[in-house]
Structures are given as C-alpha cells and as structure tokens.
C-alpha cells in the first residue's frame, strides 16, 4: 500500500516536472484540443438551442386540416372529436379563418399581401400535432384525415418548417459525425504528442527500465500528464463555446426570430460539461497510453 501510494505520488511529481519543463508546448496542445472540441460542441449546442426554440414556436411538423368552405360549428366539432379520439394525434387546435389569414400573413412572410385579397378566401382549419414525427407516419395520418368527411384538404406543414427540420436533422447528423471524428483526432493527437515526449525522454525511460522499472511505472507519468492536458483542453473548449455562444446570440436570435420563434441561448448542462471534460481527458489518456506502450515495445526490442 505504501509502495502503491509512493509510485502514484512519484508519477504525479514526474508529470509535473515534465510539464514545468515545456509549459508552452502543453498550453498549445490544450489550446488545440480546446479549439478542435469547441467546434462540434458548438454545433451540438446550436442545434439543441435552435431545436428547442423551434419547438417552442411550434416549428415541428404539423398537419393542417382545411374544412370545406362554409362548414358550420357542428361540422367543426365533429372533426375536433375525431382528432381527440385518434391515437396518432398528440394535440390539435382549432384555427378560425380569421386567425388562419393572420398566420399566413405573419408566418409566411406575406404581410400586406393579405390586404390585397378580396375578403378572406380561407376556410376554418385545424392545426394537428402528430405523436410520431417520422415523415411516413405523418404522411399516412395526413392521407387518412384528408378522406374524412368535412375536410376539404389536409396539408403537411408549410415548407419553412420542413426546411428547418431538414436543416436541423442535417446539423445533428453532422455534429454526431464530427464528434466521432473528433474522438479519433483526439486519440491520434495525444498519441503523436506522447510519442514525441517518449522519444524526448528515451534515455530516462531506457535507464529506468535498465534499473528494473516496470512498463506501468514508465507509462504512468505520461498518462497522468495527458489526463491533465486533455481535461484542460476540454475546459478550454467549454470556455470557447461559451464565448462563441455569447457572440452568436445576437445573429442567431435574429435568425430564429425570422422563423417566428422566441429565443434565448442556453449553455451546456453540468452533465454535458462534465462529459466534455472527462471525455477529452480519457481520450487523451488513451492516446498517450498507446504511444507509451508502443515506445516501450520498440525500445525493448532494440535493447534485446
């Protein structure tokens, strides 16, 4: 136990001494990690923020049921009852024809055009939110509702919402892809740096091995140092992301408001932050472990 503790304490001291010898280099390394991680992190946060804002402003896909021209209140009630009973419908809202015109005016960017129209050509409508947002499920619900008596037309949501959803889906996929790529890059980067560090300290490693040090003894300071640099890089990424979010708040707000949403940017949750820092540290440690092991294997082969 004393021996175990002494070994760990010594590894920390050794790592600290090496860090003190090349602080600039380590700082640059943490910066690089921070910048690389900041990109997918930002993308993820942006997607989440925009997605949330879109959800609040009702930008998730909806089906609009237009009633036949001149429908009366009982007919509308019949449709409302049907919608309430339908298992695939999450919620629905009755849109009187005046409101429909106002919405067309605002949300579709045709403000004063509505004034040009002779009277209000629109019928009453229902705005329906489906439980399942999958395009196929949406389409089948739309087709079913279109066949109901009293429904003149059933439309999937207007183009802009689909556009936003498509953009969000693409961005989400991109964020996931980039994160996977990034994990690889982090490991490779930590590997490259640790390989160089091991080459720099080759005499120290060789002499320690000659004097009976185990591979783990040699590896430990490298891994500890990588853990620290990785964590620092992750923290830097969080800071950078926070800075960018603040800078992007204004243009993003403008963008989202164009889509009719309310908007306020949220940073990562504590859990997300912990995952970023911990993930970076672990990936860096993995890379350095691999590099140190590779160095040891090669050195042992050369010495034998």
């Amino acid at each position, binding site marked *: 136990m*004393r*021996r*175990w*503790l*002494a*070994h760990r*304490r*010594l590894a920390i*001291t050794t790592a600290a001494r090496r860090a003190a*010898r090349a602080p600039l280099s380590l700082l640059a390394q943490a910066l690089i990690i921070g910048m690389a991680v900041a990109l997918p992190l930002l993308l993820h946060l942006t997607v989440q923020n925009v997605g949330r804002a879109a959800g609040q402003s009702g930008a998730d896909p909806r089906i609009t049921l237009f009633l036949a021209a001149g429908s009366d209140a009982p007919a509308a009630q019949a449709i409302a009852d049907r919608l309430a009973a339908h298992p695939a419908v999450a919620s629905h809202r009755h849109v009187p024809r005046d409101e429909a015109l106002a919405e067309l005016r605002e949300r579709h960017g045709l403000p004063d055009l509505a004034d040009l129209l002779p009277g209000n050509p629109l019928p009453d409508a229902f705005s329906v939110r489906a439980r399942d947002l999958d395009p196929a499920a949406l389409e089948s619900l739309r087709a079913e509702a279109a066949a109901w008596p009293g429904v003149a037309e059933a439309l999937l949501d207007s183009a802009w919402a689909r556009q936003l959803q498509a953009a969000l889906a693409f961005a989400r996929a991109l964020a996931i892809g980039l994160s996977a790529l990034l994990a690889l890059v982090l490991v490779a980067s930590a590997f490259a740096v640790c390989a160089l560090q091991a080459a720099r300290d080759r*005499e*120290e490693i*060789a*002499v*320690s091995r*000659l*004097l*009976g*040090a*185990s591979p783990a*003894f040699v590896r430990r300071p490298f891994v500890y140092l990588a853990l620290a640099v990785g964590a620092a890089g992750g923290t830097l990424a969080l800071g950078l992301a926070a800075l960018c979010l603040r800078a992007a708040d204004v243009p993003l707000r403008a963008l989202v408001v164009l889509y009719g949403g309310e908007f306020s940017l949220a940073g990562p949750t504590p859990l997300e932050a912990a995952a970023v820092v911990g993930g970076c540290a672990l990936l860096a440690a993995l890379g350095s472990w691999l590099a140190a092991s590779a160095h040891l294997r090669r050195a*042992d082969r050369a*010495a*034998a």
Partner: protein
Amino acid sequence: MIELEGVAHRYGAATALDGIDLDVGAGEFVVLGGPSGAGKSTLLRVMAGLVRPTAGRVVVSGQDLARERRAAPWLRQRIGLLFQELALLEDRSAIDNVRLPLDIAGVPGRTARERASAALARVDLAGRERLRPAQFSGGERQRLALARAIVHGPALLLADEPTARMDAASALAVFELLHAQCGAGATVLIASHDPTTIDDVRVRHVRLERGRIVEDRAATCPARVARPAEA
C-alpha cells in the same frame, strides 16, 4: 551467486563472448580485465540480464537468466549497475539521479531523499544534491553514477570501468568504497583497465581476451576476512 556455463554471445557476425565458464561466490570481489573489445562489458550485461546470451546458461541468485527475456524486476532491483557510459539523466538533479533505484522500488519520497543524500556523501559529493550532472567534472560524474549503483544496498554490484575518468588517488578511494560494499556482504564484479587493481591482492582477477577467459587468479587474501586489517 553467479554461475556461467558455456556462455557465448554474438552480435551479428562478431563474437563478443566465446564459451565463458565462471562461478562467482557470494561476497567475492572480481575484477574483469582485458584489452578493449575483449567482451568485458558484454559479460557484465549478460550477468545483469540486459543481454540474453546466444548460448549457455546464466544463473544469478538462483534465477536462470538465459531463459527469460529480461531479468524479473525483483532481481533487477537487487543488482546495482554502473554503466561504462554512466547513463546519468542530464535533466535531473544529482539527487534525483541517485534516488532513481529507490523510486523504482517504491520507497516513499522522504526516505528515498535521505538515503540518496547519504549515498552522495559516501562518494564525497555531499552538498551538491541540486546540481545537474553536466555541472560535475568527469571524475565527479563517475562517482555520482556509483552513488546511484549502491544507493539501494544491492546484493550484487556490477560496475563497468568505475575509475575510467579518475586520477590514481580518486581511483583508490573508489576501490576502497567497493571493498567496503563487499565487506558489507555484497558480491562485486567490476570491469577495469586500471593497473592499480592488478596488484590488489584482495581481489580475484579474471582476464578476458577475444571473448575467452585467459587467466583467473584468485585473491590471495579474501576480501571479507582481510578488510579490517588492510583498509
């Protein structure tokens, strides 16, 4: 302590050791002599388990080294090694160099520091703990490396040219230190060109030439018994 049987080693085409049979008992003091390139360093490396001989049997402290790729850590940690090129770590302080075997053995920091300081004092380098090896003269560097070889009280001390960088007076002091180690129970094997060792009656003299033992002269006055009277 050490049993060699038909040990041979070839580096590629070059033969460095060519059928060495040698028994060294516990507590013996052996000097390996011979011209440059005779195989002295290679023989010491074989005994330390750093080089696996291409043929023959090497048993050190009961462990058969020819079988294993590298000596087990416990054995490595019982050996004290002084390399011909010293193998000092230039970017560590003197004391950090000396305490390395203790660090590897997991000796706690405070104890390691104290024992390393004591070892430095034994080679007459007290008070220079914080200097780098480059700040020592050639002879001082050699003593520094020697301090590292004895700091953990090894049962077997293998020293390659421990006096190469020294004048006669310093060399004598180092030999006395090695005799003291031997007297305290360690087995000592050194490779040396130093002519002063040849006349030392307390050591067993083994002479190598072209990888073969050409002379094996026992100590006329065994170290353990003789030490108090002679030193």
